[in-house]
């Protein structure tokens, strides 16, 4: 088991490395000169003093070959230093430290809540297949899956404020304030639909298995049947689907933070884009890739834990 984990980690490192390399290269070869960008605001501007710009570039080490610059950057990252913002000069580390709790706490809370509620709803739908309960839940899932967050968010805000006359749910007041409720709900809508669907499909599939018939033939009470015999097999696909949600959550965080004015990573990203703040962008790419890869890793590790058949196969690998 330990070897399996190690194996997975070893595969994870090159992937992150690769992504970072590609992004760094894109930024390096593409966007052009950070120094120039500071001084030249519009296309077609002519640098007022080429020599001066060259000197600054030389001093900043921007004339070294690509690989050396990249290597240098990687070394810095491994020491945990992401450099300074091109725009504000502040340490990128600080900016990120401030933003991460916002995004992560919201994201994790949303995913955790959705996974649990979604699974329960999906199971209820499957167990009452083709009744009004099922249709209601499935219809709800179809409905919420369709609407993108940046549409649902504003519509809900408009509704709450203009119709219900509530306060505008804008801004971040810490994780435990009521202001977090609306963004949390909006963030949860799309993923919940996916989990509901997955759980429902999973339960339906398990229901048609022979071993459920065996369990029924033993006259077990429904509660035992559902919790012990039905939910356990369903955990595997649900957990892996939850892992996939992480990417969606990262994407959505960028959108939600704009809609609700939350100072998280998404908001940082948007600012960095509009001002071409490369160190920030690169740092964020790294963090996002790290998060995604880590969640994939966790999902992979969970398989042998959840499915005894997979566990034996892994032992076989050893």
């Amino acid at each position, binding site marked *: 088991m330990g070897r399996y984990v190690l194996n997975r980690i070893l595969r994870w490192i090159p992937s992150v490395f690769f992504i970072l390399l590609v992004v760094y290269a894109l930024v390096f070869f593409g966007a052009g000169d950070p120094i120039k960008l500071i001084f030249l605001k519009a296309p077609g501007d002519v640098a007022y003093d080429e020599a001066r710009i060259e000197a600054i570039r030389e001093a900043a080490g921007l004339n070294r070959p690509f690989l050396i610059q990249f290597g240098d950057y990687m070394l810095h990252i491994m020491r945990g230093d992401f450099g300074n913002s091109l725009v504000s000069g502040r340490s990128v580390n600080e900016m990120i430290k401030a933003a991460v709790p916002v995004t992560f706490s919201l994201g994790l809370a949303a995913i955790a809540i959705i996974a649990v509620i979604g699974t329960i709803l999906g199971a209820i739908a499957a167990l009452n*297949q083709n009744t009004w309960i099922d249709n209601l839940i499935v219809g709800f899932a179809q409905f919420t899956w369709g609407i993108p967050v940046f549409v649902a968010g504003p519509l809900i805000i408009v509704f709450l404020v203009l119709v219900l006359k509530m306060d505008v749910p804008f801004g971040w007041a810490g994780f435990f304030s009521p202001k977090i409720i609306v963004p949390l709900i909006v963030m949860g809508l799309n993923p919940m639909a996916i989990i509901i669907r997955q759980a429902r499909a999973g339960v339906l599939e398990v229901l048609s*298995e*022979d*071993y*459920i*018939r*065996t*369990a*029924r*033939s*033993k*006259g*077990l*009470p429904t509660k*035992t049947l559902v919790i*012990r*015999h039905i939910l*356990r*097999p369903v955990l595997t696909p649900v957990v892996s689907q939850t892992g996939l949600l992480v990417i969606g959550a990262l994407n959505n965080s960028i959108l939600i933070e704009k809609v609700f004015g939350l100072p998280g990573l998404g908001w940082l990203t948007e600012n960095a884009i509009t001002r071409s703040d490369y160190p920030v962008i690169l740092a964020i790419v790294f963090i996002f890739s790290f998060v995604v890869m880590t969640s994939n890793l966790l999902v992979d590790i969970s398989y042998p834990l959840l*499915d*005894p*058949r997979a566990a*034996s196969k892994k032992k076989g690998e050893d």
Partner: protein
Amino acid sequence: MSELLVVRDLETQFKVRAGRLHAVNGVSFNLRQGEMLGVVGESGCGKSVTMMSLIRLLPPSASITNGTVMLEGLDLVKANKEQINAVRGSKIAMIFQDPMTSLNPFLKIGIQLSEGLMYHRKMGKKEAYERCAQYLDLVGISNSRQRLEEYPHQLSGGMRQRVMIAMALVCEPKIIIADEPTTALDVTIQAQIVELVKELRDKLDASIIWITHDLSLLAGMVDRILVMYAGCIVEEACLRDLYKDPRHPYTIGLLESIPRIKDHENRRLKSIPGQPPNLLEKPTSCLFASRCTFKTKRCEREVPSLASVPGDVEGSSHRIACWVDTRGRQ
């Protein structure tokens, strides 16, 4: 030896896209305490559905539309959920056909064996596991205590079927229904399981219903046999009578189609011509008529009911559902 189970006029139907499928058409039989009953018929004749209807173990698209199943004064057809659950596993237990898929791969053997015991007999875990280990020993599985902590995929097919048998026995039910328990196994394992069941039968006091499509399997094992076709019982007899004096054309055809070692090399295998009937309509005539070499006009107009064979004492144990007297015509 009294009547333990009394089934009368049982009818079960499935809702399908093309209408209603009449899977069980008026089945009636009794089961005595300690008796071993064989149920034989081809695929699709309704033998499994009939027996599963006894404990209402049916998919949502199926429903029992008529009949009674009396067990110890309770009509299982009309019983409520609690009553039926109290019967399942505890008074009537089932062994299923495919051991590879009938055990939950996510749960340890110990849990699957003991949960019925803990629920029906209100036993604690320790006591239940003790009992389970004993039964594993009984069905011939070594290292029983260790096996309880293993998962199904760690056992072979034969072993899993033994576990299924132990699972059915562990609550000491009065009736055990074995639905083709050896069909999915190798012939050698099949023989072992049959031997096992014969042994157990002597030790236990339970009645056993053994469903199979292989008539030759039942020889030397069961007391009585029901022959089913198209959702009806067509012949009912004790073992000796069925093999020595089969009366229903279908039974006769079945027996003749069994290849024998003593057969002439060039003799063609005999089979029953024709196809099983379409069960979308309620039967209004004998459903075997189209394939029957003895058929008469009456066969095509009326559904024959199960009655004592011609020539026998009224109320005898040998009955057929047929309008024709096949004695001497074979």
